[in-house]
């Protein structure tokens, strides 16, 4: 029984979670202790037991490091107990973030695939375009995002689109790189075979390069969808009036609401996990239909 649990993923994951939780609580006590001593002092409570001190550190309103329990309680409150239409609901903010993420991911992966096709088929573009694609990713997105938002606002493009553009900006890169690699993955023998049939470039593309690129594509789509979410959150830090996880992070840090920040972080991470898993499911279905060894 126990061994079978060890062989599965569940028990190891649970054990690791438990270890993290223990260290987290220790960290909370350690980081919040100073503040707690000050709180006791301000309340005129001169003497207190260690137990009281520890209890205090674990239940502050604006702790330096909230405990996992506090974060879970906040998540419970803002996800389950608040109406999804309310601006206090993380479901509401989540849907704002996810819609921009998905739109950006769609644009980014289309752009990435298109660029990859061009780069693979036009030799001069490989040398002229790829350096720019790489250079585009060396600009810190946190610096670029406000400019994109401001410029687009100038043209009265607001709301979802500027955020999706930033998400696309981050996600097209891994898709381009992965897809270029995938489209170039057929070995010389597979290409020679096409030559013996005097297949056109288009036929070689459709019947060889595209199917060969699929595994590479899915790997980069997984990276791309996570990058999209990061891009959207960064954009929301710039443009917080529309809501979203980024807006929650900003609002939380503005008012020192550390619990709210951590809850938003966890919710964003959970969304990224779900999105990556969804791409993974599609990946498995497609590769199975394409005859991958189980």
């Amino acid at each position, binding site marked *: 029984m126990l061994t079978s649990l060890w062989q599965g993923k569940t028990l190891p994951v649970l054990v690791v979670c438990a270890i993290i939780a223990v260290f987290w609580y220790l960290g909370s006590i350690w980081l919040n202790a100073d503040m707690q001593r000050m709180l006791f002092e301000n309340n005129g409570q001169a003497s207190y037991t260690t137990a009281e001190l520890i209890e205090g550190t674990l239940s502050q309103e604006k702790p330096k490091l909230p405990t996992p329990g506090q974060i879970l309680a906040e998540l419970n409150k803002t996800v389950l107990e608040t109406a999804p239409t309310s601006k206090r609901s993380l479901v509401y903010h989540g849907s704002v973030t996810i819609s921009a993420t998905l739109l950006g991911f769609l644009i980014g992966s289309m752009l990435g695939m298109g660029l990859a096709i061009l780069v693979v088929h036009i030799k001069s573009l490989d040398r002229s375009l790829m350096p720019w694609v790489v250079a585009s990713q060396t600009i810190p997105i946190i610096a670029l995002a406000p400019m994109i938002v401001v410029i687009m606002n100038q043209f009265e493009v607001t709301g979802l689109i500027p955020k999706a553009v930033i998400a696309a900006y981050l996600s097209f890169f891994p898709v381009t790189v992965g897809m270029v690699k995938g489209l170039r993955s057929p070995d010389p023998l597979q290409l*020679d075979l096409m*030559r013996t049939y005097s297949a056109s470039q288009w036929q070689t593309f459709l019947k060889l390069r595209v199917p060969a690129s699929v595994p590479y594509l899915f790997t980069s789509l997984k990276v791309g969808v996570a990058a999209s979410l990061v891009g959207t959150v960064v954009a929301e830090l710039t443009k917080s009036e529309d809501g979203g996880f980024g807006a929650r992070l900003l609002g939380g840090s503005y008012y020192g609401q550390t619990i709210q920040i951590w809850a938003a972080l966890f919710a964003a991470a959970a969304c990224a996990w779900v999105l990556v898993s969804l791409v993974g499911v599609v990946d498995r279905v497609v590769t199975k239909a394409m*005859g991958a060894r189980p």
Partner: protein
Amino acid sequence: MSHPVIEASHLSLTFETNDGPVHALSDVSLDIQKGEFVSLIGPSGCGKTTLLRVIADLEQPSEGEININGMSPHEARLKRAYGYVFQAPALYPWRTIGKNIALPLEIMGYSKVEQAERVRKGLDLVNLTGFEKKFPWQLSGGMQQRASIARALSFDPDLLLMDEPFGALDEIVRDKLNEQLLRLWEMTQKTVVFVTHSIPEAVFLSTKIVVMSPRPGKIHDIITCDFPRDRTLDIRETPEFIDVANRVRQGLREGHSYVD
């Protein structure tokens, strides 16, 4: 007057590599008439694959002239003059066996009905009926190679270029496929250029055996054998067969003599 199917004169091909030039072919002249079955035999590295690839327009000769059906190899390739069986099966892993056999048919624009019919015939020919829906990894290496032969035959080319197609197969399967290939050649009047390492295989199948020697790759000897077209494997026991086999062996030894 009809052209020879393959007309090569004074072909040379030098690969420029980091370790200096490799003379893969040197002054190779060879005519192959319609309906001939020509085997290329020789130690590895003597340019058998390279010669086949030059015929197929997959490699350009550095010197010399070659014509396929009176055309340049390039024109012949565009006209889909030949079917090529590579040393490795080279099946596309994302296609089922049936779809792999249909690949050239799809590219050449055969109708769906015609494709299905030809795939069925091809599977039958190489004894793979029932494996149509399987993916390549589900088949043994020998079965994969047979599928690749069916693929090369699917569009019925008049010229077959085969690079050690049975090299990876065990003796029994090899014998059987040798007989099948001979029957196919006998029935269809195809021209075959066949690379092999095996002397008995070459002697059994061929009307002409080209013995090659390495460094630089060149033709050492050309041996004709004129066994009846409807021969069977039993012929391997006859003195005539053993005689030809010995001549081939002799030729291979001489080609190798630089070793001593």
